[in-house]
C-alpha cells in the first residue's frame, strides 16, 4: 500500500485567534486555543523530494551516536554531525545549531525524562516574524550583521528508535501552501509557530518517516486528490492534546538506534 489516509488537525481559515502556548517545565507542554478543523488527507512516500522544491528531503545521516538520551553525547557527537550535514546538503557557508528537542509518544517516558510529545496540529516552526526574532535571541551579538544576508532555518529530524509506526511525521509540500497559505499568529504572542489552514491546494502531504509497508513504494505524483473534510473539531477555548496514563516502557532500547533512510542503499542522499 502506498497511500495512507489519515486525519490531521488544521487551523481554520478566516477570522479568529489561534494560539500555541507552551508551558510547564522547559516549555514542554502545549495547548492550542482557537478553532481547529480535522481533515482527512492522503499521505504518500516522499522519495525524490528536495529541499529547494518541496522543502524537505530524505538525506543520508549516518551517526556515531550510541545513546540519543545522552545529552553530553549529543553535544559532542551529534551536533558536529548535524552541522556538517546541513552544510553539505544546503551549501550554506556557515551553520549554527540553536535548538534540540526529543519527543516521545510514551506518556510515562515523557514525564520521567521531561520530553515533549509529538505535535498533532499542522504547523510550521517559524513565521516571517519569528524566524528573524529567533536569530536575534540565539545570536544577539551577531544578529544585526547577519540579518541583512540570506539565512534559513533548517530542521534535522530523525527517529531514535525504529521502526516508527505510531505518530509518524508527515510534511506538506512547500509549494502547495505558497501564496499566503500560512496564518500568522498575533504579534503579542510569544509563540514561534505558524499555522497553515487547510487549503484546497495543501493536499500534497508526504510521509517523512517511512512505515515498513511503504518502504518499497515509489514516489507518486504530487497531484494528490481527495482531501475531504470529514469532521470539525472546533474549540474556542482550548484543545489540549490528549494525555493519559499510558503504560510505561524503557527509555532506551537494547539495540543501537539507527537511521532508516540512511541504511537503505538504494536511496542516495538527496537535497
Amino acid at each position: 500500500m502506498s497511500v495512507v489516509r489519515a486525519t490531521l488537525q488544521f487551523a481554520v481559515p478566516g477570522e479568529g485567534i489561534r494560539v500555541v502556548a507552551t508551558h510547564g517545565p522547559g516549555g514542554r507542554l502545549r495547548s492550542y486555543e482557537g478553532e481547529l478543523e480535522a481533515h482527512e488527507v492522503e499521505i504518500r512516500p516522499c522519495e525524490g523530494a528536495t529541499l529547494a522544491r518541496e522543502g524537505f528531503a530524505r538525506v543520508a545521516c549516518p551517526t556515531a551516536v550510541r545513546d540519543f538520551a545522552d545529552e553530553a553525547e549529543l553535544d559532542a557527537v551529534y551536533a558536529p554531525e548535524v552541522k556538517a550535514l546541513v552544510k553539505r546538503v544546503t551549501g550554506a557557508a556557515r551553520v549554527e545549531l540553536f535548538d534540540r528537542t526529543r519527543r516521545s509518544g510514551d506518556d510515562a517516558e515523557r514525564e520521567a525524562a521531561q520530553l515533549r510529545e509529538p505535535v498533532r496540529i499542522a504547523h510550521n516552526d517559524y513565521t516571517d516574524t519569528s524566524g528573524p526574532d529567533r536569530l536575534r535571541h540565539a545570536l544577539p551579538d551577531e544578529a544585526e550583521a547577519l540579518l541583512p544576508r540570506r539565512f534559513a532555518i533548517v530542521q534535522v529530524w530523525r527517529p531514535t528508535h525504529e521502526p516508527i509506526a505510531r505518530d509518524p511525521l508527515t510534511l506538506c509540500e512547500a509549494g502547495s501552501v505558497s501564496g499566503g497559505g500560512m496564518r500568522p499568529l498575533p504579534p503579542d504572542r510569544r509563540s514561534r509557530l505558524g499555522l497553515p489552514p487547510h487549503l484546497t491546494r495543501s493536499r500534497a502531504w508526504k510521509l517523512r518517516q517511512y512505515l515498513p509497508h511503504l518502504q518499497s513504494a515509489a514516489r507518486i505524483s504530487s497531484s494528490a486528490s481527495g482531501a475531504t473534510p470529514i469532521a470539525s473539531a472546533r474549540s474556542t477555548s482550548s484543545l489540549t492534546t490528549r494525555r493519559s496514563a499510558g503504560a510505561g516502557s524503557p527509555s532506551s532500547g537494547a539495540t543501537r538506534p539507527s537511521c532508516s533512510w540512511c541504511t537503505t542503499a538504494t536511496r542516495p542522499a538527496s537535497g
Partner: protein
Amino acid sequence: MFVVYDSDPARVGVTPHASFENPLAPPDAPPRRSLEVRTFAFF
C-alpha cells in the same frame, strides 16, 4: 531534513508538518521516539 524559514521570499521557507495517528499501525507498536535539531544556515 526540512526548511521552516528562509529570509529569501523567493525560496522555500514554509514546510508545514504534523504527526498523525497512523491507522495502519499495529496496536502493539511502540511509541514514537524522535530527535529534532534546528539550525541556522547562513548563505
